């Protein structure tokens, strides 16, 4: 027993280190490859250069994809916050016929393959005579990210003491006032977290997006896919490195400003 106890900690640390390495090593390799000089991807590179970064930033399809992506993700994540909040609120506060159904429906994209959704929307859109415009892409992303927003809001909502609602009511607050003055401020961190998550997911989504975009609406991941089909140079690695950097920065800043301690302080208000 004693020996096992003493071994437990180092073994645990080793396992965690291995898991972390397994998760992060591919990203590290990509970042290193991006700084290579040869026009094929090579690890480790034998000469160093920044030229693939330059190409990644100036390649027209990537620029267009970036703008499209920001535009689509902004809409999709904003709409997802609105829809997800309403859904989470409905499921949490009201028990009605079919509330369980609504819950599983709104959470189902977690189990439906993105590919299926993409094809389905493509068929639906052409059947309805819709062109493959931004609206279809936004709708597609909305469906994909709503469950995550709803989860996030739902958890925040669960963390709100139901007695607060009663306290506010006993002090004369009508239901709408309770929502605006009590629930909404307390949900803010959850909403922000959900929005951020939705934005990142939407921005990175590829499988379903591939089916519902065309040349003018293609997002960055789709543009990258098209690029890879023609070239094998480290531009892709450079772009990936940039995206990893930006996303990481984004998360760190977000965590700092609307971060964990605000979310936790809601949980421990007692």
């Amino acid at each position, binding site marked *: 027993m004693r020996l096992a106890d003493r071994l437990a900690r180092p073994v645990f640390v080793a396992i965690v280190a291995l898991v972390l390495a397994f998760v992060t090593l591919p990203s590290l390799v990509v970042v290193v490859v991006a700084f290579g000089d040869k026009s094929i991807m090579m690890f480790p590179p034998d000469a160093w250069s920044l030229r693939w970064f330059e190409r990644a930033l100036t390649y027209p399809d990537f620029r267009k994809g970036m703008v499209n992506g920001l535009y689509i993700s902004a809409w999709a994540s904003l709409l997802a916050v609105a829809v997800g909040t309403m859904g989470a609120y409905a499921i949490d506060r009201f028990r009605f016929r079919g509330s369980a159904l609504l819950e599983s429906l709104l959470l189902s994209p977690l189990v439906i393959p993105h590919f299926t959704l993409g094809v389905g929307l493509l068929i639906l859109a052409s059947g309805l005579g819709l062109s493959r415009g931004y609206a279809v892409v936004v709708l597609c992303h909305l469906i994909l990210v709503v469950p995550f927003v709803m989860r996030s809001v739902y958890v925040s909502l669960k963390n709100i*003491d139901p*007695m*607060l609602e*009663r*306290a*506010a*009511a*006993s*002090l*004369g*607050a*009508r239901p709408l*006032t309770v929502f605006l*003055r*009590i629930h909404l*401020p*307390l949900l803010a961190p959850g909403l922000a977290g959900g929005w951020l998550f939705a934005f990142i997911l939407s921005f990175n989504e590829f499988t379903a997006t591939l089916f519902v975009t065309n040349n003018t609406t293609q997002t960055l991941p789709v543009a990258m896919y098209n690029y890879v089909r023609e070239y094998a140079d480290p531009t892709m690695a450079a772009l990936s490195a940039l995206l990893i950097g930006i996303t990481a920065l984004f998360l760190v800043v977000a965590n700092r400003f609307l971060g964990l301690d605000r979310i936790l*302080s*809601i949980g*421990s*208000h*007692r």
Partner: protein
Amino acid sequence: MSAAETRQGAEGDVSLSVDRVVKSFGDARAVDDVSLKVRRGEFVTLLGPSGCGKTTLLNLIAGFLAPESGEIFIDGAPISGLSPFERNIGVVFQNYALFPHMTVAENVGFGLKMRKVGKAEVERRVQEALEMVRLPQMGDRRPRQLSGGQQQRIALARALVIRPQLILLDEPFSAIDKNLRAEMQVELKTIQRQVGITTIFVTHDQSEALSMSDRIAVMSQGRVQQLSEPIELYRRPANSFVASFIGEINRLACTRRRDADCVLLEHGAVRLRLPAARVPGEGTGDSMLYVRPEALRAVDPGTPEANLCDGTVDAQVYQGTHVDLIVKADNGWLLRVREPGFDALERWPVGARLGVHADLAEACVY
């Protein structure tokens, strides 16, 4: 019930009146045909074990639940048609339920804002309320920066500042540690008297109930078992439930029969004679004699003073302020006799023979 209680109910103007209220959850009747009247300024405690319906009754009064039948009146006006936000009732919750995203002053001022009170007036009244609970400097703090006792006082200030017709307190001290609790009880009672507000207090802690209340409603299985002043409740419990629930009491099995205007209680060789007026109900058969440990005294065996029974000391329980003697009576009864003096430890050692004297005026039979 007792004459004192009837007199109290009719006296003064009634602030809260609960009239034959019923509330069920599924098949269980949480509140079962409860009626009670509370006078203006009175402090009434709903006391009972968990699941007795006391919190449900509180929620019905606050409007968080709707009664199936019956009506609740505040200052004579029926209120079951009103939502909680339309009633003018202050509520203090068990976990305080302070709004974590607002400052203390914003919390206290919330009810006033809802009432569209002007800004200067809100400020003045909030400060007044904070001074009342002796936390005048805390307005800018957040609730989580305060201790439990301070949060409790802010919750009280928030409920009182709207000048409600009635204040409801739901086990407000259960989350506060024991030393602070006694202090908070005194403080709450002082503030309640100062403000003169009608108060309904819910607790399962009988010592809290006995020390604070003007009257106590003991509840069990959705019904009010007894509504009396604390001293009446303790000395003249209305039934076996109240007798067993409040304080410590000896339950002594016996058979009873009527003998002229007396009731004879028998168990083994013991025969007791009580005036019939002291024993509710007719009939003969198995009964229980209820008598508190402090109504019993250890005396020399076989003397006329030993009017209850003779027996042997089975154990001694030293409790600081007193000694409890566990006595095995010759007729099989097991009694707890409370002796105030410390010499009882030496005088009545384990195995000693003794007689038990009972102050039968303090005994009840059910």
